[in-house]
């Protein structure tokens, strides 16, 4: 099964990091086939930031998202730019304070005030990690511990606690959705 995920937001929101951590978790800690790419041109356009993750049980050939199974967006502009990339039965995941759904949406939508939660934790810089926890919880694609391990790979030790808290907030928010 090939799963295509697209992350989008603004530069500085850690969109690339979010995708990278999830991909690293899939590839190294869950042993899945996985490709991570980031769109450099989007960054160059000013402001926008996006990354893509393909996860599969088989060898991955085409490395880009054609129709996303999951679209994770943390800014209105990313929502506008990429909503057409989401497949008909795909899932939209948003930072509910940052993104307003503009058109009637028949697909599943999950929202979390990730930036606000991060702010309450004392640092908006971990909004992406809150979102990552939420995404992990909603999709259950990967083991929770795998994603936590990948966070530790990426983040300096002195920030592990903060990041773990952020991740868990996001994750339990997802658990409460059900």
């Amino acid at each position: 099964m090939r799963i295509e995920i697209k992350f989008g937001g603004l530069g500085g929101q850690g969109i690339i990091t979010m995708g990278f951590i999830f991909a690293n978790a899939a590839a190294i800690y869950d042993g899945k086939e996985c490709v991570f790419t980031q769109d450099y041109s989007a960054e160059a356009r000013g402001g926008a930031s996006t990354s893509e993750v393909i996860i599969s049980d088989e060898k991955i050939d085409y490395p880009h998202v054609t129709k996303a199974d999951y679209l994770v967006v943390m800014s209105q502009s990313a929502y506008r730019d990429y909503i057409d990339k989401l497949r008909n039965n795909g899932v939209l995941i948003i930072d509910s304070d940052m993104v307003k759904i503009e058109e009637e949406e028949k697909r599943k939508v999950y929202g979390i005030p990730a930036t606000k939660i991060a702010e309450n934790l004392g640092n908006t810089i971990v909004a992406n990690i809150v979102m990552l926890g939420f995404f992990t919880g909603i999709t259950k694609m990967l083991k929770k511990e795998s994603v936590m391990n990948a966070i530790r790979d990426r983040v300096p030790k002195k920030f592990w606690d903060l990041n773990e808290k952020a991740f868990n907030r996001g994750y339990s928010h997802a658990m409460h959705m059900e």
Partner: protein
Amino acid sequence: MKSGYYFWSGDIAAAEGAIAAGCRFYAGYPITPSSEIAERMALRLPQIGGKFIQMEDEIGSIAAIIGASWTGERAMTATSGPGISLMNENIGLAIMMEAPIVVVNAMRGDPSTGLPTLIGQGDLMQARYGSHGSYEIIVLYPNSIQETFDLMMDAFNMAEKYRVPVMYLIDALLAHMFERVYVPPEEEIERKIIRRKVPNKVPSRPFEPDDDLVPPMPLIGQGHKIHATGLTHDERGYPNLTPKAQEKLVRRLNEKIIKHEREIWKVEEYKTEDADKIIVSFGGESRAVRNAVNSARKNGKKVGMLRLITLWPFPHEFIKKYTADFYVAELNYGQMYHKVREYADGNNVKLIAKMGGEIHTPNEILKEIGGV
């Protein structure tokens, strides 16, 4: 690097692959999308007693690695198309001096400054013919991050074995894309390293070939009193500016590669056995082609992919052996297409071109070969 699984970009894998293959000397100049190779080398080489230097430009970078090569180091530089344009002068020197080096070209959109962060495949002819003169060179091109790591061993081994520069093509897609890479145990890697032939007497004749047309290579500092020059030279290495010396030297420089082309050729034949349509492809682009082949097969179409891993010397026998319609999918206005035509022997050959910036989508490929 400890044996295990890593999540690496193509740039990191190229650097780590080179280190695994014994590279201990790197000179380079930053350029997108190859800069992360330099960054990785700057971090890693001194940890293992190797040398990294950032030079003033690409011309200096390649000159430095040719110098280092003569001391016996497995030496590498990495750049992108604009940098290769500058390096081509000394690619010729490495050819003429028969200095083993590996030059990575992370291809981006072209020509000129083009699309620095996005894929291009416009440097395929430049890789082969970029420096002036009549010469043969080896050009390899992986299509995954694992292969980017693994194939480095071949690049260095071929460079050392044939005393020739090896151009290692990747592209902006591979350079910045991350995949899982398995690093085998050190002993397993070590066993694969082919060391260069060195002469058994001092002083030697640095350009007197063995039967394989490759001369053993003396190293600096061991009393060989080496003389090497970019001028046409005799077997002692002394300039000999005559048609006779030219004939002997340049013919051998070409033939030493052609003679071994079957050892140098690497291709992937994917579902080509019964194919009536074969798509020739390489590098990042081949990942779209493979996807298209799988879709076509699901619909009962006999489509296959011939993926060139060795681009030069051109693996012509793998074109000649098939009776099928050929398609050449590449991110340029037709380069390898012309080589395929040269050997297609009456078979149809069609170009599937895109000017770069992104690889074809599988659907675009399918449309070009007549739909699924």
